[in-house]
């Protein structure tokens, strides 16, 4: 075997080894979640999904659903509008400000966002609340949704923009009927990333939602629990039963992610040029 072929083989082997090294922990995590969580789920059944803690995650699951919906309602429209402003009026003051602000939001540690909402909402209202949690999550997802939507809208080829305007469409009509249609997959992905982050983030919830509730949804102004917060708290408990619940909750979160991703990616077809 000559030197060049040997070098080539060596190179390939290195690439494969490095890829495995990177992917192995990921597979390990997913594998462990499926194994450990699967046991909890099979043993607990519906009681695990719907029942109260410490053996069930019903309130946390319901709380996460409420938080995700509320966060999406608060965060996605703001992120979307900001992205539209930045793409459609890039030279204007509003457009430039939108761009700058949204990007710098990524840099804020999420725990600080929680603390901010603590002082802005929890303290004045005198209670932890779903509203405070959703507000914190909305700020956290903002730059992610913004970035995806901005990227999706600004990568529309110029010729389609010209074609839309050449039909006498206003900016609003062109946006809704042409640009959003062409960029629909990127926009849907952006919203999904936002939803996934809202469902999975823990830090913004630490000082905002209270958590640990035995009861289901009691209103936007009342404390609420969430699956990631439950996991965070239960793994720190000294008893095995709590750990088992945390594993089960992790599996449920993972499965929900997958289901939503697959469903949306399938429903929203890519636009081919």
């Amino acid at each position, binding site marked *: 075997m000559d030197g060049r072929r040997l070098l080539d083989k060596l190179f390939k082997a290195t690439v494969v080894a490095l890829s495995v090294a990177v992917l192995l922990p990921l597979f390990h995590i997913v594998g462990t979640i499926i194994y450990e969580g699967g046991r909890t789920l099979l043993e607990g059944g519906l009681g695990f999904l719907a029942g109260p803690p410490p053996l069930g995650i019903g309130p946390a699951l319901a709380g996460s659903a409420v938080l995700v919906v509320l966060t999406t309602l608060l965060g996605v429209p703001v992120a979307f509008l900001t992205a539209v402003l930045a793409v459609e009026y890039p030279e204007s003051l509003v457009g430039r400000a939108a761009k700058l602000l949204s990007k710098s939001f990524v840099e804020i540690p999420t725990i600080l966002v929680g603390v901010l909402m603590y002082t802005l909402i929890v303290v004045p209202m005198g209670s932890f609340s779903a509203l405070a949690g959703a507000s914190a999550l909305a700020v956290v997802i903002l730059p992610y949704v913004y970035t995806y939507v901005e990227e999706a809208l600004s990568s529309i080829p110029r010729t389609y923009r010209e074609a839309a305007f050449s*039909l006498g469409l206003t900016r609003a009509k062109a946006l809704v009927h042409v640009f959003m249609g062409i960029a629909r997959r990127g926009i849907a992905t952006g919203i999904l990333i936002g939803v996934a982050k809202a469902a999975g983030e823990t830090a913004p919830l630490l000082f905002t939602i209270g958590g640990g509730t035995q009861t289901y949804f009691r209103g936007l102004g009342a404390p609420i629990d969430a699956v990631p917060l439950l996991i965070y708290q239960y793994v720190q408990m000294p008893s095995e039963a709590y750990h088992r619940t945390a594993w089960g909750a992790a599996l449920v979160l993972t499965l929900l992610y997958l289901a939503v991703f697959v469903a949306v990616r399938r429903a929203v077809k890519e636009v081919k040029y």
Partner: protein
Amino acid sequence: MSIASLRRYLSLASSISRLVKPSLGGNGYAASSTYALQTVGLNVYYGGRKILDNVNLAVPRNTVFAIMGPSGSGKSTLLRVFNRLVELAPNARVEGRVLLFGRNIYDPSVDPMEVRRQVGMVFQNPNPFPHLSIYDNVALGPRLNGLARNGEELDRLVEWALRKAALWDEVRDRLHEPATRLSGGQQQRLCIARAIALKPRVLLMDEPTANLDPESSRRIEQLIVELRDDVTVVVVTHSPGQAARISDHVAFLFSGRIVEVGPTREVFTRPRSELTERFITGALG
């Protein structure tokens, strides 16, 4: 220079013209009392750069007006002045007057959307909306501009536009397929249908055959000549041959200036400027 090729352009041009509609008599301009478009002292700048320099043109109604010139001479810019699309570039500045049937479209009281409804456009690359069906590509403009009162009327309008664009027979059974499934030539005819569905008074075409095969190009050239009965067509081309084949009047643009403008026959037989002569004989760039 090749006299033979010139003759070929001319005979083709006049035979197509005669086939469809008798060509304008006399000096050409006199056949139409008003102009569809007129520019008076038009200057266009991108940033500090002057792209169009004192352009004065008059496009008679219901004619095909060709703008020819080498790459970078400002043809596309000039075309985009006519529907105010040029304003999409944030650093563009337009000076002078552009009259659409006598009305200055750059007057502050004029709504650019209104101008664009009256002045349709077809682009250099076929660009049907990729997320819409064949039908919806044509129907979108009329629908959003309130041109049809109900679905039936819209159906009729779409069919009318597709027939005008000589595409109906090829797509009548597949109206709800994605527009991107059509061939390049069909896509370009779809774009023509999309533009004329708004029943514009002027149709702008920016090198509409530049990226098509010869057969598709021929069909579109024929279509342009036929469209003249319904709209005034302003067509940009870098090919003098195409200008000769399809236009009634032609302007030769060079470095942002009109070097020569007049009835196509005259410009091609007796060019007044040596530059024009070099361009139409292919001796230029």
